[in-house]
């Protein structure tokens, strides 16, 4: 397309109008489900609104809710847990996913069991993965303790010891998330020309050298995409800890999303819950904007 400005022809003008008309439903839907609720969220975060105390009304309280959050130990713990989940599960899922992708990138004669093996964890609802892993790590009937007993060790309190519960939840998250990472990385692996490896082989490069010098650099964009996706979802971690421990023991495995859910739905403290949600959004926004800077491009150009 030329960059010289020219008067639009009637056809171009009508196309442009049609274009905006076709974008309208998407923006209407987003306005109703996202934009208006955001405005409402921000407004509510500066007010007192407690559904269990309707006589208090909905007075404006300025930054009180935010100040309360900074002094709320349970909130700070939930933030810390969320950060820990990000630190453990993001690299964990990417490393495991890379391993799965490398294993899956072999010339199989029958492809479907491998592909389905990668798709199934992705398609399984998060809560169900949580339920299944909770079942695996159940004290009496779980398979993990059965193996320990079989090997002559004492069974462990997988889900009732704070540290073990955290690690068990991380394991479930990594299992669930690594398959999506593997699918993204596998697509990346398949774009690397075979000739690179053949040339390296001729030069006598070892498998490890080929991995370091060809695979990793060529996969960098795909790894970056996987990292960003995984980070965005890790910040919102809710389903798996909810199904496995419901945040327990105590609130040792509670995430930010879980605390916001409890504050709002169980404690009915809408004002305070809104302030917490705004804080959570700010964290996500910083990361999402980094992602968008990476992906932003003109879709009209091919």
């Amino acid at each position: 397309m030329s960059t010289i400005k020219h008067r639009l022809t009637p056809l171009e003008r009508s196309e442009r109008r049609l274009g905006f008309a076709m974008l309208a439903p998407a923006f209407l839907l987003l306005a109703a489900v996202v934009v208006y609720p955001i405005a409402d969220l921000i407004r509510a975060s500066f007010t007192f609104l407690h559904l269990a105390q309707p006589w208090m009304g909905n007075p404006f309280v300025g930054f009180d809710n935010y100040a309360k959050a900074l002094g709320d130990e349970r909130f700070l713990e939930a933030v810390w847990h969320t950060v820990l989940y990000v630190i453990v599960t993001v690299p964990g899922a990417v490393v495991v996913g890379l391993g799965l992708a490398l294993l899956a990138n072999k010339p199989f004669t029958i492809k479907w069991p491998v592909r389905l093996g990668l798709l199934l964890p992705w398609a399984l609802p998060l809560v169900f993965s949580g339920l299944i892993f909770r079942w695996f790590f159940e004290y009496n009937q779980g398979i993990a303790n059965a193996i320990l007993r079989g090997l002559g060790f004492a069974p462990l309190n997988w889900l009732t010891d704070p540290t073990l519960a955290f690690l068990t939840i991380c394991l479930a998250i990594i299992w669930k998330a690594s398959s999506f990472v593997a699918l993204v990385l596998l697509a990346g692996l398949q774009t690397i020309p075979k000739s690179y490896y053949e040339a390296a082989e001729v030069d006598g490069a070892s498998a490890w050298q080929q991995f370091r010098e060809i695979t990793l650099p060529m996969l960098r964009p795909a790894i970056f995409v996987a990292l960003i996706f995984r980070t965005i979802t890790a910040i919102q971690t809710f389903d798996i800890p909810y199904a496995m421990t419901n945040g327990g023991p105590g609130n040792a495995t509670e995430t930010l999303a879980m605390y916001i859910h409890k504050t709002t739905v169980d404690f009915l403290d809408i004002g305070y819950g809104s302030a917490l949600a705004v804080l959570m959004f700010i964290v996500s926004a910083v990361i999402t904007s980094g992602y968008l800077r990476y992906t932003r491009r003109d879709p009209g150009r091919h």
Partner: protein
Amino acid sequence: MPRLGNRRTMIVLAGLIVAANGFFPALWILFTSFKTEAELMRVPITIWPAAPTFENYVRVFVDQPILRFLFNSVAVAVLSTLLCVSVSSLAAYALVRLRVPGAGVILSILLAIAMFPLISLMTPLFQVMRDLGLLNTWWALVFPHAVLSMPVCILVLISFFQDIPRDLENAAMIDGCTRLGALWHVVIPLTAPGVFTAAILAFVNSWDEFLLALTLSPRVASRTLPVGITLYQGEFSFPWPIISAALVVAIVPICIVIALFQERVVSGLTSGGMKG
């Protein structure tokens, strides 16, 4: 490097590891669903059910409104998929083909809004749905679920629309089609695989969604499968054999979808992820 004759074995082994990693939990649940509560208490645990029983399945269907959950899940997933795919197709087409000024910026804004973590909006969404009287109805979930899948659907559809040669549409328009006519008669049929891929992704996303369903539709009669099964309360402890049977009932439909359309799903996921 020594080239051993076991190259084939290594390949098979690699495949087995990937498949076992993916299948094991689902298979374990399947086996558990045929065991009795007594067998689960046995101390060296059994892998294969000693005396397979269908009792758990009977109890899932008789004691729990699982058919109701299933119906709700299907309705919400189908409606939100239809909404998401139609809205996303229109938007993607406008961005790729029509001379909308600043298409790149519009796409970024669209994605930025749609990728807003809906989790942090559960409080206002709860209020909005309550004000509209939609709490505990399918609609409370249909609209947010459609938004949830919009980014991936738009990205998948854009990548498919870009591959349709412009000349085909121009030819159709010369033959007397309108723009929308060209979209309906030429572009949509040609991009049917793309539209279909977007639809599967939207369906799975909605089928799997938990937090919004838990918040916006918590009443028993309007629960979706993930909420219904997770909140399943036994008389004493968590009734694992029945839960397992319920999980199998909930997982089988999605497994069939995935197994039938695996190539589409993979291409959709990766084009949404890679090109996005």
